[in-house]
């Protein structure tokens, strides 16, 4: 189930189940969205991205869905594995020009139970 921890929302899933991590973004002008995975003691690692002219994009075991109407992103992980345990952040930015700094969401702690 999903719960709000002291610092981060936490999602606990059984190994082999599918995970869905949600994110609400704030800036209507953002047109490029990225999901990052951050393991303890490491920097964020790129997982998958999506541009605003798309509503779905698939990678290996991961799918990102974008709903611009309600400014919502989701990351779906198929057949969740113990190695997927980490904090997941969505980030938003612009596509125009350079220097496109990322604005990160709160983050969700994913815990995979054996």
């Amino acid at each position, binding site marked *: 189930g999903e719960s709000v921890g002291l610092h981060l929302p936490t999602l606990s899933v059984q190994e082999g189940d599918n995970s869905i991590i949600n994110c609400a973004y704030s800036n209507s002008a953002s047109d*490029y969205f990225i999901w990052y995975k951050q393991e303890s003691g490491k920097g964020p690692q790129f997982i998958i991205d999506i541009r605003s002219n798309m509503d779905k994009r698939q990678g290996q075991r991961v799918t990102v869905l974008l709903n611009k109407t309600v400014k919502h992103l989701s990351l779906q992980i198929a057949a969740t594995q113990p190695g997927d345990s980490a904090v997941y952040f969505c980030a938003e930015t612009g596509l125009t020009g350079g220097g496109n700094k990322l604005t990160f969401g709160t983050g969700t702690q994913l815990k995979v139970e054996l």
Partner: protein
Amino acid sequence: GAGVSQSPRYKVAKRGQDVALRCDPISGHVSLFWYQQALGQGPEFLTYFQNEAQLDKSGLPSDRFFAERPEGSVSTLKIQRTQQEDSAVYLCASSRRDRGGETQYFGPGTRLLVL
């Protein structure tokens, strides 16, 4: 290939001390970003370089924070007269080209603790 590296990985400073944090971006990457990540939160933008030019420093929290990238490769983030609220992980990221849609690759970060 080599990713973004940062040093030191950990730094303990006494309040009032100056610190310097180093970032080695991926070779040839034009854009370099610094972010600050407080415990339990997402990274927050500090500053951005296009080659050696610092084009955006809007995220630097005070004039105690200073960043440079003099030759367009290695960058240093300096914090003067550190305060306890500066305790955080400082992340560096680089991207290949300076345009939208480019993936930012992050280093492991420097964890700064100010006592």
